[in-house]
């Protein structure tokens, strides 16, 4: 494979990851790392470094579009990012003290339950507006967006804010301890715990993942894991793909986004359980 074809192929794969990432609120690492290692022969440290680039590029491209369209809620994103970043800092300092396998097992079980609840509410387009949560009122965790599919404005307000913030903290803890992305946990916390519309959850997650990834990006850069020649096609592809993804999500139903999200939760639940039982690393 010539250099140009190699770089163009990585760029195309990254664009695909960017489109899906923008719709599902993920950074694309879950797709990009296996593609880079299995199909392009990139070593794992460079693939992980490319994954951080992918998360931040995806967040820049998608969050810019989502913030403009009103799908991403900046106050909600900042409020919850505080919990995730605090969790990540504490998690990184607890590495080696807490049992990683026990945590993986616990998260695997929690994700399995989340997959079950996601399946149960697959047909739920927009959750009913719940009674006001004290923290949601205090921190203005509510909003409204125009849904092109439903052809009406959708009003939403965060419920069970303490529960959502706790899941965010736990997701950050896991990120800091295990060095994995936590976009899926963020979406689940907003969609299932805080009862927000699915598209608002994925769009706000897109804004948040850039902040969480930037908190650990220095580690990857300092270790020399971000190779410039691999980072370039990844950044270009993901940025273009995520921007396109923000256009696409406007024409999708919340139920469609949830159906696309379900396989990701199932995959994560299975991989966490297998890691927890020591079957797969």
């Amino acid at each position, binding site marked *: 494979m010539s250099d140009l074809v190699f770089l163009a192929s990585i760029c195309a794969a990254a664009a695909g990851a960017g489109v899906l990432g923008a719709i599902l609120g993920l950074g694309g690492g879950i797709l990009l790392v296996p593609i880079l290692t299995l199909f392009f022969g990139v*070593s794992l*440290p460079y693939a992980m470094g490319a994954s951080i680039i992918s998360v931040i590029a995806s967040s*820049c491209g998608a969050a810019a579009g989502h913030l403009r369209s009103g799908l991403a809620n900046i106050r909600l994103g900042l409020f919850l990012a505080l919990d995730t970043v605090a969790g990540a800092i504490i998690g990184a300092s607890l590495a080696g003290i807490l049992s990683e396998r026990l945590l993986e097992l616990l998260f695997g079980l929690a994700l399995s339950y989340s997959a079950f609840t996601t399946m149960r509410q697959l047909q739920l387009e927009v959750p009913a507006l719940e009674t006001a949560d004290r923290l949601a009122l205090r*921190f203005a965790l509510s909003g409204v967006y125009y849904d092109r599919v439903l052809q009406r404005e959708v009003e939403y307000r965060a419920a069970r804010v303490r529960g959502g913030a706790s899941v965010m903290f736990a997701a950050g803890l896991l990120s800091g301890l295990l060095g994995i992305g936590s976009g899926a946990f963020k979406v689940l916390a907003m969609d299932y715990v805080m009862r927000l519309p699915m598209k608002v959850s994925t769009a706000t997650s897109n804004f948040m993942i850039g*902040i969480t990834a930037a908190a650990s990006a220095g580690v990857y850069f300092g270790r*020399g*894991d971000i*190779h410039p*020649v691999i980072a370039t096609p990844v950044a270009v592809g993901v940025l273009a793909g995520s921007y396109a993804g923000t256009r696409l999500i406007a024409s999708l139903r919340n139920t469609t986004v949830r159906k696309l999200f379900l396989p990701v939760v199932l995959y994560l639940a299975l991989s966490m359980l297998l890691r927890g039982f020591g079957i797969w690393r």
Partner: protein
Amino acid sequence: MRAEALVARLLFLGGMISVTLMLTGLVTLEIHAAAGGHAVEIPRVVENREAGRSADVFVSLPQLARALRRWPPDPIAIITAGVVMLLLTPTLGLAAAFVAFVRDGDRAYAVISAVLMVALLFGFAFRLGG
């Protein structure tokens, strides 16, 4: 301008400047290689990380700044400048949010933005300072 619009504009601009720098560096690298200069052998680069850090990678900001001051600048340094710009873009987004919330008199979110921004900047400076 509302916080959402300001942050959206900054994230988009940051992303665009980053990829422009990266692509400029990559094209310059190819031109150098075609003219018989230093070439990055991609198959060697992608496979060899396990054996140790590649010589083509910058790992600190002072090291990068020194390479950018040389003339002509090292193409890999130009790409890396784009990478650093991308890594800093979320922090710039938080700075824009801070400015917008201060202007709107939203003290709670101005504080939240500032705390997150300081946490990210501290982590970055601590790890990449040299």
